[in-house]
């Protein structure tokens, strides 16, 4: 119980909730200034998410990669690292999984896991590279991962356009059915919403996240290095090794997310004309979730639903779906500047204390 208390401090539950409310208010104000009716807009959003089983299934699909990237960013953060490169690691995961999905022909119980593992491994290596640069050369991981994002993006496009191309199309060949991660029977029940095993694995990963960090000796070392690298060094912990390990595990989460996005949803990889953005959303999710596994799942659901629902706003009322970026950006802003949120909360707590005094 007390361990749970350590992970969930009072601050880390009230602040995000208030930040979400404030973020939605900001979005409402922006929409109102643009001549849209925020109530109608948010209503259209809710209808879009919960209106039909198809929509609900698709909303869940949208949530899934965010859990992966949220876990990715949060894991690195717990070890004291800013992994802004979840984006690139996600892309590498997509690429590797696609390649294995197309180019090897094996029975499904080998093919699918292999493709998934390839994705995770690709993400781990890509992230480990940044970790190694930091450990051996002291290069700030914020800059190196951002550079690696762009390199991954162009590399992936190259792989799709040149190596895995489907003739005449602007995307890769399809992955073989033996590498599909779709849950066909559930999809059928939900009007062909693209539900896939990735969602299950994502939830499993949040459990793994908790397990590694708080149950294993490795986790103790990673957390110590994250809180105080000097003390960890004094304690005999191999801090540099921890940096690389943490980045690799973090990258693996992101890579898995990318793998499932292809194997479970799109079945092929298109030439991208912009970075998909899951990695950056992962930063938002991890911040909102207080860097703990339960909060991250919750945060991912929030953002995934918001993003999916914004299509409804766009379709019904022609609100540009960037409004969600504004909402999300504002929410993180309020979480990060929790000083301002606590300033809102102060009157509530003061009243409580005065009531208690009066009663005593």
């Amino acid at each position, binding site marked *: 119980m007390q361990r749970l208390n350590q992970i969930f401090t009072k601050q880390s539950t009230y602040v995000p909730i208030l930040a979400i409310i404030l973020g939605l208010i900001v979005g409402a104000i922006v929409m109102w200034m643009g001549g849209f009716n925020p109530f109608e807009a948010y209503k259209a959003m809710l209808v879009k998410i919960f209106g039909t089983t198809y929509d609900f299934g698709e909303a869940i699909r949208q949530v899934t990669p965010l859990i992966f990237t949220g876990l990715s960013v949060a894991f690195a953060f717990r070890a004291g690292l800013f992994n802004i490169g979840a984006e690139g690691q996600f892309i590498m995961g997509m690429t590797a999984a696609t390649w294995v999905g197309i180019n090897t022909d094996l029975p499904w119980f080998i093919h699918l896991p292999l493709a998934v593992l390839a994705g995770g491994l690709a993400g781990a290596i890509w992230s480990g590279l940044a970790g190694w640069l930091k450990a051996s050369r002291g290069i700030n991981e914020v800059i190196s991962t951002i550079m690696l994002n762009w390199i991954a993006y162009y590399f992936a496009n190259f792989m799709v356009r040149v190596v895995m191309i489907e003739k005449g199309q602007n995307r890769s060949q399809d992955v073989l059915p033996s590498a599909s991660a779709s849950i066909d029977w559930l999809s059928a029940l939900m009007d062909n919403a693209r539900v896939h095993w990735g969602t299950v694995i994502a939830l499993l990963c949040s459990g793994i996240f908790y397990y590694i960090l708080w149950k294993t*000796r490795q986790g103790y070392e990673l957390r110590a290095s994250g809180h105080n690298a000097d003390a960890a060094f004094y*304690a005999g912990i191999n801090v540099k090794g921890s940096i690389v390990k943490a980045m690799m595990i973090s990258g693996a989460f992101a890579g898995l997310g990318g793998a499932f996005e292809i194997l479970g949803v799109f079945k092929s990889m298109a030439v991208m004309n912009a970075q998909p953005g899951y990695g950056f959303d992962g930063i938002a999710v991890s911040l909102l979730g207080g860097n703990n596994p339960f909060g991250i799942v919750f945060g991912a659901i929030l953002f995934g639903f918001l993003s999916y629902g914004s299509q409804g706003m766009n379709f019904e009322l022609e609100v540009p779906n960037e409004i969600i970026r504004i909402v999300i950006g504002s929410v993180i802003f309020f979480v990060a500047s929790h000083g301002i949120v606590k300033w809102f909360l102060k009157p509530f707590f003061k009243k409580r204390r005065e009531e208690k005094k009066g009663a005593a």
Partner: protein
Amino acid sequence: MEQRPIVAELKGITKRFPGIVANDNISLQLRKGEIHALLGENGAGKSTLMNILFGLYQPDEGHIEINGSPVVIDGAGKAIELRIGMVHQHFKLVKPFTVAENIILGNEPTKGATIDIKSANERVKQISEQYGLKVDPRVKIEDITVGMQQRVEILKTLYRGADILIFDEPTAVLTVQEIEELIVILRNLAREGKSIILITHKLKEIMEIADTCTVIRRGKVIGSVSVKESNERQLAEMMVGRSVSFQVDKQKSKPGKPVLEVKDLVVPGEHGKPVVDHVTFDIRAGEVFGIAGVDGNGQTQLIEAITGMRKASGGSVKVLGKELLGTSVRTVTEAGVSHIPEDRHKHGLVLDFSVSENMVLNNYYKEPFTHKGLLNYKAMDENAKKLAEQFDVRMSGIHTEARSLSGGNQQKAIIARELTRDPELIIAVQPTRGLDVGAIEFVHKQLIEARNAGKAVLLVSFELEELYGLSDRLAVIYEGRFMGQMEADEKNEEQIGLMMAGNAMGAAAGHTG
């Protein structure tokens, strides 16, 4: 001598922080041209009081009068206007800037749009000569000695016309020689009509320089005495509230087999000069070996090299015959070495971890704390409870963050951890820094008990009294070299002082070969 005029008076100053009354109805008078010492233990409230005088804090009750008129000092700027200057314990100097740039900061002379650095340099030179504080205005702070940096701090106040100077623990970072120079400077300043408040806990220095001494304990003024009519014992009693013995109960040691053998240790430093320069010494079981020296002479690097936290470039370090140089920190720990680090926040604890997690910082990976790769929290908790009881660590629970413990209890926790791992060699660096007298006595007792139980203890301290009280043998380190090694029974304080300042004559006289 008739009474000199009062230049500053603090009347009934009270300052509260959450959970504590730092200053409780404090009144104090400072006269012109006097050197007024403010004596108290760590946490007694001296710094808070002076920060109020310097405008960094506001008092909750009471007021200040400068030259007879009540004033409100609402910031450093106002204090400077009132000609109050503060020479901080931790210098407020911008390292990459020059001496002159630091002195003129905030008050820069200009020529059109640019800073007139030439006239700044000249003005600095002028003041430095007037008060006998020699510095070169064009040198960068990061390139000068600590003693010179302090002079720059002093010049900062004089440049702004300070008449009231507050010195916060000024001798903490100086060599014996620099301390003597500072004493001369202080007397000069007083003679020029400056009024000086000296915050310190060093009784000897108070007896030597101060005219008056106000003693503060737990936020209250115990008394203001004329130093001429008092003595160290009286001041100490006022400071602590009971009679203090300066002696630690210690029988003569019976040293056994060699536990630590350091031979010709060399640790490279910047600019090609080694920071540890061919150091050789032994420590036997059942003895305490102390290393004296002013901070910054290589002690830190020496300890880091022995514990595996820093690479050495030559020599050998053996514990119980096993060569440890070049191995990892963990190997050293497993060879039977405990380390109470100099900086308990930087190295000693992970402040965000619970007390329980901190208690296994060096051996979390061993059974029973880790079993097949998984942590055993129950075992960790039991261990923490046991240690906390044994060593009287006060906290609200073993699951609270280490951050929430007081400095003294944090240190006790570290000592509990390091002493109960059953080490052969205990390395303690500044183990009583920042602790109150009760905690200091406790730590000293623990170290002597360990030594009596047959452990070897390597003690590094910047307080000579502590070294004399605990050590069986002593060495003095200066610029990375051992200037001499001797029995601590011989009261060779003067020799030690000379060696600490690099005087080889002291070494020749005290060397026991």
